[in-house]
């Protein structure tokens, strides 16, 4: 499929999507929205272990065009939130509005020191979607989330990593190398264990602590039937690197 607003690269276990509308700050219009939703499909279906989203130009994404009606196209952030594999976003420059929603729907937010985050949607037409309202307080805590959403203040890279919004920060120019280090690290892990751990972290945070502990235990029992668990324990005893197969 030929895309006009994004670029897509597929590897056996990794799907890479680049927002490629830098002249408009990677703001979403209708074409970009439907292209991203189409491109996400293999990741939503669980056919890759890692999804990487980055962007061309100085800004990750400044939001969306005023006339964009997301309800007609589905919501890309909601699709990202449904991905069972690990989702990495690499953020430079501005990340706001719909861009911020994509970022919080991901699992690991990596940034360079130019990265900054804000939402000014309360001053415009739209209240931020449920993705932001649900995820942001669970990422940075309730007090910060309410403050950031109400004020629209710009949160720089340093404040973002201190709050837990960014997982890692590097100097400008080193974001690609950082991103690739994380992809490499994640691909070495047992793929099913990675998915289940994510499912437990995200899913369990919607439950009481009591239920979340049971949920984690049950996912652990499922993993005990996998070849990878046996390989992992055997490799640890033999003091060598494990060879996981994803089953």
């Amino acid at each position: 499929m030929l895309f006009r607003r994004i670029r897509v690269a597929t590897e056996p276990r990794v799907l890479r999507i680049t927002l490629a509308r830098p002249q408009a700050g990677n703001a979403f219009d209708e074409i970009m929205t439907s292209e991203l939703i189409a491109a996400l499909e293999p990741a939503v279906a669980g056919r890759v272990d890692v999804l990487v989203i980055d962007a061309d130009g100085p800004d990750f994404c400044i939001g969306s065009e005023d006339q964009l009606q997301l309800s007609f196209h589905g919501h890309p952030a909601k699709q990202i939130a449904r991905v069972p594999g690990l989702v990495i976003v690499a953020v430079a420059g501005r990340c706001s509005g719909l861009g911020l929603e994509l970022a919080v729907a991901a699992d690991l937010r990596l940034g360079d020191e130019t990265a900054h985050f804000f939402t000014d949607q309360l001053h415009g037409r739209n209240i931020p979607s449920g993705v932001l309202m649900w995820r942001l307080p669970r990422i940075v805590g309730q007090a910060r989330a309410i403050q950031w959403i109400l004020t629209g203040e710009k949160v720089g890279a340093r404040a973002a990593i201190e709050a837990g919004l960014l997982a890692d920060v590097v100097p400008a120019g080193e974001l690609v190398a950082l991103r690739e280090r994380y992809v490499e690290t994640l691909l070495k892990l047992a793929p099913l264990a990675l998915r289940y751990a994510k499912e437990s972290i995200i899913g369990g945070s919607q439950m009481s602590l009591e239920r979340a502990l049971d949920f984690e235990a049950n996912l652990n029992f499922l993993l005990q039937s996998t070849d990878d668990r046996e390989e992992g324990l055997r490799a640890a005893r033999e003091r060598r690197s494990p060879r996981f197969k994803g089953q």
Partner: protein
Amino acid sequence: MSGSTSIDIARSGAVLQVRLNRPEKRNAISLEMRDTLLDALELLALDETLGAMVLYGAGAGFCAGADLSEFTSHPIISRTKESRRLRDLFGAMASSSAILVAVMHGFAIGSGLELALLCDLRFATAATRVGLPELTLGMMPPAGGTATLPRVAGLGTAVWLTGVARPVDVQDVQVRRLVNGMVDDVGSAVEAWTAILNRHPAAMLRQLKRSVRLHELSA
């Protein structure tokens, strides 16, 4: 108290001081130690003159995790689930009506860190390393870490620490939110917190815990 030579339990007023003491195995939690810890939690639940526990480790570090030498391959999963249900240390910690405090030093890895995350307050000495290496072993955190870590440090930090699956310095910017404060050394921190907790009657400690924490459990 009955049981393990690998766990020392002392009582000071309303506070139970529990020391993991198997330094030759880096305080790795054996099944016997898990059962002794569960006995301590049951004592806290039953003895109303107790209101808090301070958990810490002897030797080079707090706890290196579960004792992998006791892990079996191809277990009968339904039986594993039943034995977990019958000896549910992590559920007992999460639902304890006592205030639980962990003082970490050296290392708190895997289930060791998860024990600390099940406590209400965590302290650490400088250069303590924390980590969840389970995903490199074909497993996921088994002792409540995926449930407690997002509640303590947020979803992003929870995925990050689980995903990097290696020990990191507790003072690193990504994880310093895991602890409530840094302490100079374990022994004096244990005594200081025992004294702070003992300023209040056991019933008050329990009331405080119920008011601020237990709504999370079944909310």
